[in-house]
């Protein structure tokens, strides 16, 4: 039994089948890439795990626990954090506040009106931890900037920072490198490897930037039209004719 797995997940939107009996197994502490052309259903996988949508059938299991029975807000508490493909920021909140929101499930209950020491301590600890995360991801100097004012790359990084604040066991990253410059991509590269290898966080990575996928992924799953067409080590995938066809076919259609 692997650490995280999807078994036969089917998701329909109206008549459209977004995922068709999709299965995938992710080993603990590994970086598992999920690739495929646009509209293949990659983000739908994440949205099912985040419980933003309800699959028609199948199961999603994290460390022996069924996720499909849980409401969306409980997923973070179970150790799953995610980032978003289109930068979905809390843009009217500062960078630090964004990370504090990420810490939400780990700060004790709602006690807004009591200026007691318990609350002060809990807040203090949360702020310290948020600062540490910002330090680690190089965002410390933007601590009190509004998220909406950061440049694109830093917004992406802030997204990761907020996700990390939940201290996840499983991290779902939705195109963290899209639109970034080479220097920024290699920074992400390092961060991901550090998270997986040193801290043992399991990462599922949706990404189009092949350079990143090939350099960090332990295993790659390829989706097309909601179905898994290939799975294997990066090198195997690169050589798989079906994968090349899926991508080229799409490219050809674009052109």
């Amino acid at each position: 039994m692997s650490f995280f797995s999807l078994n036969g997940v089917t998701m329909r939107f109206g008549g459209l089948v977004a995922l068709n009996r999709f299965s995938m197994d992710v080993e603990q502490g590994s970086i598992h890439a999920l690739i495929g052309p646009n509209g293949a259903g990659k983000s739908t996988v994440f949205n099912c795990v985040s419980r933003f949508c309800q699959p028609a059938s199948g199961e999603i299991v994290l460390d022996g626990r069924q996720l499909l029975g849980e409401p969306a807000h409980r997923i973070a508490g179970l150790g799953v954090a995610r980032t978003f493909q289109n930068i979905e920021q809390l843009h009217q909140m500062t960078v630090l506040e964004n990370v504090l929101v990420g810490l939400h499930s780990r700060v004790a209950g709602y006690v807004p009106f009591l200026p007691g020491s318990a609350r002060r301590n809990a807040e203090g600890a949360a702020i310290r931890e948020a600062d540490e995360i910002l330090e680690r991801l190089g965002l410390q100097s933007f601590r009190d900037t509004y998220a909406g004012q950061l440049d694109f790359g830093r917004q992406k990084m802030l997204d990761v920072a907020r996700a990390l604040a939940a201290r996840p066991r499983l991290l779902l990253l939705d195109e963290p490198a899209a639109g970034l410059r080479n220097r920024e991509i290699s920074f992400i590269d390092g961060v991901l490897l550090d998270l997986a290898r040193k801290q043992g966080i399991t990462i599922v990575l949706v990404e189009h930037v092949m350079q990143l996928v090939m350099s960090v992924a332990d295993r790659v799953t390829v989706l097309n039209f909601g179905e898994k067409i290939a799975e294997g080590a990066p090198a195997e995938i690169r050589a798989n004719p079906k994968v090349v066809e899926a991508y080229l076919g799409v490219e050809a259609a674009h052109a």
Partner: protein
Amino acid sequence: MYGAPPRRQFLALGVLVIAGFVLPYLLPDYFLYIGNVLMTYLVLAIGLDLLLGWTGQFAFAHVAFYGLGIYGTALLHMRLGIPFVFGMPIAAAGAALIGLAIALPATRLRTVYLALATFAFAECAQWVFRTWDSVTRGPDGLRMSAASVFGFSVGNDREAMPVIAVITALVLAATFYLVRSKLGRAFCAIRDSEHVAAASGIDVRRVKVLAFVISAFYAGIAGGMYTLFQSYVHPDGLGVWTLVLLLTMVVVGGSGSIGGMVLGVLLIGILPEVLRAAPRGLLVWQEFAYGLILILAIMFMPRGIWGLFTKSRSA
């Protein structure tokens, strides 16, 4: 926002309370009355802004909860002899409870549907105030007797101002803590992105319901404050016009900020008093000018007047 509220905020509250005790000895009733009205509107506006500006919920039922607070506090006192210190919290809690009952179905709604449903609720509440003759005295309006606060009779501006200043200060202090708490951050997170909020472990529906309930509670408190310095309440005063006035205060001041509320309430609240000095021939243009001010404010001050003083929040 995070951490403890800065000391200067409490200093300002201290000044407010002292002013509340001292000014009644210095100023004529007219100014005291305006002061009391403005403090009541401030509590109302902050309550509305918690939903509108902080949580991003377009809910327009606020005036109904205000009415519940007014009628509740007044009737508890007049019919059951319950003094203000108990009557006002009971009435506000009643408003909050009805807020809860509205929030449970309303939080399933979004955007225009939420706005319409809450607006419709407010209209229904006004209709009940107007029609439930045996309790509210219906279209004749309710004449309220002087409130009793700790055994003291409070029925005019002079007596009411210290009490109202203290209540306003308490509400503001509570709000300072609220917006800097985990709950306050959850409000903002829901406003900015429900997805991020949910993925970060925030129970979106529950927090929205909490925002509704707290907002209704504030409106109920404001209703209680009204009974301290006014002697009469009529259902006609609890309609669209009051909602529009509050919306204007929130938007012109700068939604999503306490400072913005203070500015908005002061400016929009004093505007009619300032306009008294305008030439009489121009008075008839007031309604036109009011509309124009709203349009210009939303065009040129997207974050309200407060936003002109604080740094921009978007790129």
